């Protein structure tokens, strides 16, 4: 098996607020293989984005802090992994990785570009920063990058300001910026959530194509299982800061084992099937009062007394990890 590109081990990121400690990420382990896509799914507030921001070392501190764990990243397949948690988040080494080896795109294309700088300036900046290019060369490469994301008339759009572009075009420009330095890993935080459905599928197509061109891995954070089904090779399902199920995409959709994953799948509509959607009962608990033991137990139809103890994430079959007492009982 190939060495993982990114290997997160038992990551804990806590926020120390005046109202108490929020355990936003509470013992997450996952790994991403080169050139593959990992989908991270879960409801809002489950810690998906915090996991991504921890990897980028962009957690605002205070109040946030990485309390435990390792984030091992390999710049290339043969090199020794670097533990990103040990780097100074503002230091030169971390800044050299950000934008160059690991790039990130965000949910809101409307606000994720600076309104007072041209698109070309913002893309060229990353190229000049990481690739020792001068101004003219950076501009040329920015036009190249815009061309790659199939923005119409890139030689003119390079001088456009973000407000002159539509949402889909801005997200294309963001992708162009993220990919301008050929990163090994792209973290996409809900990249299509704010876009129209037709534009969504264009952007996803584009990401898939660029992935095979550049050969990067993608960490795709989304709450949209449809997006995961079409994009991801592997899926990690998160609930309240923990991974509850982890497997390849096919297994997750065909043979979900965790009650939460089953609930998520039951609550999406399917074309051609006029069946009642089954929502997951209840709501996500207050982040300050996470229940003891299995955090999903209060909403789980199968909960038993045993669920007051925390279940471990166990490999129930090759590559399929589930953290639920139901599995223990069956085996």
């Amino acid at each position, binding site marked *: 098996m190939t060495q993982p590109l990114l290997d997160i081990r038992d990551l804990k990121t806590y926020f120390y607020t005046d109202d108490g400690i929020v355990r936003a990420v509470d013992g997450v382990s996952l790994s991403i293989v080169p050139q593959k896509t990992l989908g991270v799914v879960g409801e809002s507030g489950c810690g998906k984005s915090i996991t991504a921001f921890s990897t*980028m070392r*962009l957690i605002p501190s205070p109040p946030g802090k990485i309390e435990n764990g390792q984030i091992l990243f390999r710049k290339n397949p043969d090199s020794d992994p670097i533990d990103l948690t040990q780097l100074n988040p503002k230091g030169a080494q971390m800044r050299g*990785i950000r*934008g160059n080896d690991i790039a990130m795109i965000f949910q809101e294309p409307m*606000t*994720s570009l*600076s*309104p007072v700088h041209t698109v070309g300036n913002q893309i060229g900046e*990353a190229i000049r920063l990481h690739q020792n290019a001068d101004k003219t060369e950076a501009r040329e490469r920015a036009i190249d990058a815009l061309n790659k994301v199939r923005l119409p008339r890139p030689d003119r759009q390079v001088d456009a300001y973000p407000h002159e572009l539509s949402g889909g075009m801005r997200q294309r420009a963001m992708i162009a*910026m993220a990919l301008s330095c050929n990163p090994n890993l792209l973290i996409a935080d809900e990249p299509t959530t704010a876009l129209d459905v037709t534009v969504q599928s264009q952007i996803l197509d584009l990401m898939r194509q660029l992935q095979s061109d550049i050969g990067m891995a993608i960490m795709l954070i989304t709450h949209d299982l449809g997006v995961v089904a079409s994009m991801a090779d592997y899926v990690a399902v998160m609930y309240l800061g923990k991974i509850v199920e982890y497997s390849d995409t096919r297994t997750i959709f065909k043979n979900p084992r965790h009650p939460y994953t089953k609930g998520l799948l039951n609550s999406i509509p399917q074309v051609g099937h006029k069946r009642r959607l089954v929502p997951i009962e209840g709501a996500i608990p207050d982040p300050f009062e996470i229940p003891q033991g299995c955090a999903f137990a209060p909403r789980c139809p199968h909960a038993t007394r045993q669920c007051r103890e925390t279940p471990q994430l166990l490999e129930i079959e090759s590559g399929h990890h589930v953290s639920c007492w139901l599995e223990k009982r069956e085996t």
Partner: protein
Amino acid sequence: MINYIIRRLLHMIPTLILISMVSFAVIQAPPGDMLTSRLAELAEQGELGSESAMAQIDALRERYGLNDPIYVQYVRWIWKIISKGDFGQSFTYEMDVMELLVERLGLTLTLTLSTLIFTWIIAIPIGIYSATRQYSIGDYGFTFLGFIGLATPNFLLALVIMFIQVSVFEAESVGGLLSPEYIGAAWSWAKVVDLLKHIWVPILVIGTGSTAGVIRIMRGNLLDILGQQHIQTGRAKGLKEGKVIVKYGVRIAINPLVSRLGLELPGLLSGAVVTGIVLGLPTAGPIFLTALTSQDMYLAGAFLLLSATFLLVGNLLADILLAWLDPRIRYE
């Protein structure tokens, strides 16, 4: 853009005409005219009622056309301004209004522009510091100092500084903008140095109040901007934190301050009257007050008209500057 500027300039003409009418009417509104005070003067000398005094007053009335209806006076006044740039005579100072105002306006602009620069140089870095270290001891410290500056009346601060100058440093000349020997003298290096020695007091006095305001605005704006997504984008690119804050934060947070500039320009002319009086500054503010109390109508009229023009031009300049700074604002 050129079209826009031309259109704005054309719009200013009816506005100015209206303002000139209103100013003229306002000056005429109180009972009596500028000769009333002269009459009072004559009365003190016990000459009231005497033939010669009445004849003198009547002659003056005739000379200044004060017996004509108000609209005739207005047209005559405005026509002289437009055709010859002649703002008329100051009755109190018995000299040309323009002559009287020119040097004072120069000094006023010097003083107020220096104050503005002083305010920005002090306030913007503090605002940035406060925003990037929100709720730190430094942030609270500057906020506290800022509010003290805001709450201290300018005239009080002026008096305190003059007192310290005299009692502690035994300064020979306090207040004013120049030592007595340079007043009226031709401009020379020594005069400039003397000006610099005096001007810091009014700059400090006038500046302390507005510094606090600018700090608060800068801090608030920058905090707003720093919470926005594109700041995260800049960091995710691998930029240094300082560069992120300056290029993507401050660059945008400064825009509202620029639009505020337009409103501050007329204040540059008429503002700080109280400070001007307390410190005995040869600026425009104090004589404006004199002009109003003595109903020196041409002087006051010229003053109001100039302030209004400054306000309009200032706003236009600020709008142009803002359009240049912020591409989202387009004047097509």
